[in-house]
């Protein structure tokens, strides 16, 4: 059930250059939402001039503490307001939104997780969920710009972690697929979140290997709940809901089978 909830900021800190980690807690006595890895929430800035919630992927969740953790990049005025929120302050959250990854399609497989930049955070929650599934082998290849790494401890704890950096300062010099090739990683299925050029390359890689790829897309959003039709992606076939070749990223996505969508 989607809802708008008044959350408490229990921690908000800078992880590295421009990357923030914010933990939000549900009100006392309110049951937290069940989360599927890959889902997101809309976080409100509290600035009345900014009416839309910011769609941010859920990095980790802790039902016992009733918290959700978000790791985001300051990309504009809205995310700058989120980064400035003080611990103990309150903020509204619309959630949880989107479909997330289908864990049943990943269980008992060799799963390759690929994250690029601010596409890394949802891969952490996914790696942790897969780590708890017996028989599932998780390799995570994460791409950073430079040695300003983040979330590597969390990923090391639940996966075999490979790092690629654009400037070659850590791990493989290049992108996540360079790291996969350099380490001769073989997988049954790949899950990816990151910038569009990376997702295109991942779709090509999966096709070449003959394995399924699940990719998480982003787009400018307004309502977040499937009503406004702002955040669509082109689909190969006519979409069952829209009856045209557009699917709503906030509702049918953000996770799609790579071959379902036209991202070329």
């Amino acid at each position, binding site marked *: 059930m989607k*809802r708008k909830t008044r959350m408490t900021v229990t921690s908000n800190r800078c992880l590295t250059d421009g990357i923030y980690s914010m933990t939000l807690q549900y009100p006392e006595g309110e049951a937290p939402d069940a989360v599927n890895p890959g889902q997101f929430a809309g976080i409100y800035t509290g600035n009345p001039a900014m*009416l839309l919630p910011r769609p941010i992927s859920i990095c980790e969740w802790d039902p016992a503490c009733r918290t959700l953790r978000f790791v985001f990049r300051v990309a504009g005025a809205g995310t700058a307001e989120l980064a400035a929120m003080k611990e103990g302050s309150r903020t509204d959250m619309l959630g949880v939104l989107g479909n997330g990854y289908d864990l049943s399609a990943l269980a008992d497989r060799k799963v390759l997780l690929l994250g690029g930049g601010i596409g890394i955070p949802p891969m952490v929650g996914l790696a942790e969920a897969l780590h708890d599934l017996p028989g599932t082998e998780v390799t995570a290849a994460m791409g950073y710009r430079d040695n300003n790494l983040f979330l590597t401890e969390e990923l090391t704890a639940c996966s075999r972690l490979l790092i690629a950096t654009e400037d070659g300062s850590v791990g493989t010099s290049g992108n996540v697929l360079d790291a996969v090739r350099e380490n001769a990683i073989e997988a049954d299925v790949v899950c990816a979140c990151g910038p569009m050029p990376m997702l295109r390359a991942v779709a090509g890689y999966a096709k070449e290997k003959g394995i399924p790829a699940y990719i998480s897309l982003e*787009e*400018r959003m*307004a309502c977040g*709940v499937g*009503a*406004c*039709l702002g*955040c669509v992606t082109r689909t190969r076939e006519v979409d069952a809901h829209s009856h045209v070749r557009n699917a709503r990223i906030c509702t049918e996505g953000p996770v799609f089978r790579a071959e379902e969508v036209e991202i070329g």
Partner: protein
Amino acid sequence: MSADRNSSEWTNKGALPDMSVEIAGVTLKNPVMTASGTFGSGMEYSEFVDLNHLGAVVTKGVANVPWEGNPTPRVAEVYGGMLNAIGLQNPGIDVFIERDLAFLKQFDTKVIVNVCGHTEEEYLEVVERLADQPVDMLEINVSCPNVKQGAIQFGQDPKCLCDITEKIKRVAGQPVIMKLTPNVTDIAQMARAAEAGGADAISLINTLMGMKIDVEKRKFVLANKTGGLSGPAIKPVAVRMVWQAAQAVRIPVIGMGGIASAEDAVEFMLAGASAVAVGAMNFHDPYLTQKVVDGMEQYLIRHNISTARELTGAVL
């Protein structure tokens, strides 16, 4: 305790204001509607709001066949509002009737179907298809700024507007609301043109055409370059236009544009609206329509006004 509560409810009952309003012979349980395009066909927001509590649900625009809409990015936030250039993506009238209308008919609320088209024939086809359907009213979109052909072209010239209104009225099975664009020089003239064409009511304002440029990338933010501005930023323009339109015609006016609270809704009523619609701010607060209904009732109680109808045009 519970007996006390019940008895106080009982004694208050007679004092509760009458929230109902009438538009073109259709009685709405309260004046609060949804603005077309901001509420889908109700399904998505029914998770947040009990649709039985709304005066009417106004659907997203529907055409004779499915429309793909514009490329993305389709939306952008701006100060106090947002731009959109969705381009009237819709599944077409067949799917709409079978799925969306069937869904809405489960609720005790009025259903107003927003109709769009590229050409006169396309509008008429949809209106005819809806004539024998369980729909309470039609709202004709002659005001969308985001499609290359049709829509706003019919709404910016008084002769065209009068003409298409007449043609629609001839085939319509329900009362017809013409939805007007603010992107005109003289809104009163357009309101009169719709009335002269036989419109049963008018609704306004649709979005104001706007633009946003990313100065770092030196690129248009919207793929369509221009988009429609909505949200609290446009409310003063909307209130002024509703007032001007209401002065110019005898048919009911439905007011909208940036409503974010019950007080905003009352402001539109005072300016001359017989009903109001909540639009872009549904995206900010998915519970807003219900809050506006409750808040308007509180306003009437606070001001000792017995019917919502009395608010219409009651600016002093």
